[in-house]
């Protein structure tokens, strides 16, 4: 039938493949969970960056609210320099936590203050202790949560700010809490954020939405600390490759124009 017809078919197939990829890779809506609202994050898009001020507030929320139950094992105190903290400030933050070190020369383990090189100190020594302290539920490590759920930052934000009273007639099982965004609607974590629960050092009003927003900004950074470097490099690389492709294509056409047609 001709090349053009086949080209159209090829294009249609490509479109279908893309559509299929999009469909099949998108999250199967986790059961009956409520649809998560799309937020406008500072870090979204090709030129998105971490809102450092927000992330610093988020660190405060993590340390004061979340760190009681949730570890942040993949992050080291020294990483906080990325968020604009000075070495002295980070040392001061770290020094408030104790780390088990050793064995010393007597063969004993000992406690010492955390230093820059240490990972964030966990609230529990192991998963079993964490579960025992939380009625059998395991508070997950927060380092990667933004990447670990379809919906990402939008989902975490919705979850944290979305606690509500259960609809009339719903039986909330003992020990659980109603949250329409959580798959199955009943989550073990009680609402962690309360109005003015944290006193922000920069004076920002600590509404639940604000704290949720800040801690998610922080968690986006803990999940993808390389993001800014990656996007910056990506811009240069992709631009370079586009130009390279164009030059190569022009050279190819010149070379092929030799041949009799």
């Amino acid at each position, binding site marked *: 039938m001709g090349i053009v017809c086949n080209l159209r078919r090829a294009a249609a197939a490509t479109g279908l493949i893309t559509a299929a990829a999009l469909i099949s890779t998108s999250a199967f809506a986790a059961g009956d969970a409520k649809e998560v609202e799309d937020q406008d994050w500072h870090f979204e898009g090709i030129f998105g960056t971490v809102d450092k001020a927000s992330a610093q507030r988020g660190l405060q929320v993590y340390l004061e609210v979340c760190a009681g139950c949730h570890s942040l094992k993949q992050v080291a105190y*020294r990483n906080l320099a990325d968020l604009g903290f000075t070495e002295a400030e980070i040392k001061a933050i770290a020094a408030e936590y104790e780390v088990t070190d050793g064995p010393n020369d007597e063969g004993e383990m000992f406690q010492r203050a955390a230093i820059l*090189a240490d990972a964030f100190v966990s609230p529990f020594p192991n998963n079993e202790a964490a579960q025992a302290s939380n009625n059998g539920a395991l508070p997950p490590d927060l380092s990667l949560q933004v990447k670990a759920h379809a919906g990402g930052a939008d989902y975490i934000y919705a979850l944290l700010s979305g606690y509500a009273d259960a609809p009339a007639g719903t039986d909330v099982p003992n020990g659980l809490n109603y949250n329409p965004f959580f798959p199955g609607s009943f989550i073990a974590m009680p609402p962690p954020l309360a109005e003015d629960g944290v006193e922000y050092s920069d004076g920002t009003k600590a509404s639940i939405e604000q704290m949720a927003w800040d801690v998610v900004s922080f968690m986006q950074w803990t999940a993808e600390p390389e993001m800014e470097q990656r996007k910056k490099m990506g811009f240069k690389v992709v631009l370079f490759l586009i130009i390279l492709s164009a*030059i190569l294509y*022009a050279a190819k056409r010149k*070379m092929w124009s*030799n041949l009799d047609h």
Partner: protein
Amino acid sequence: MSDDTQDHDGSRRDFLYLSAGAFGAVGLGAALWPFISSMNPSADVLALSTTEVDLSQIADGQRVTVKWQGKPVFIDRRTPKAISEAESTDLADLRDPQSDADRVIQPEWLVVVGVCTHLGCVPKGQKPSEQRGDWGGWFCPCHSSHYDTSGRIRKGPAPLNLPVPPYEFLNDTNIKIG
């Protein structure tokens, strides 16, 4: 047959091929760098490239070993006797002449890397029960090198003094090595 492609048609065609080749070569070179760089020390390794030591717990005359970049570092809070012996040495007697003043920041504190400059053993002398060699410093049990109270080689096969690592006093009681 294949040679026909080399028309000497003019610089425009060659320029195109040249720029294509150049771009490609630049790209390839740039692409190789991340691979090589990944082999350099990573951030967590670099974080351990310095060690801070709290000196306030070390008594007069006491010696402490700390780990720095995987190696032992001897910290000696020297007695006045040890200091004067170190300072009054005739440099002509030394295999590796170095004045004590050149090896310390504050004379009371000697900081040296505890690796024998002969073949790499860790010299004895840190613990009170260990031998200190004929000059009261350190004694390497592997081939009997003797180091003095400034960590300088005096007798035995080692060619050089115990190295002094880069360090600085952060304040009166803390030093940062590395």
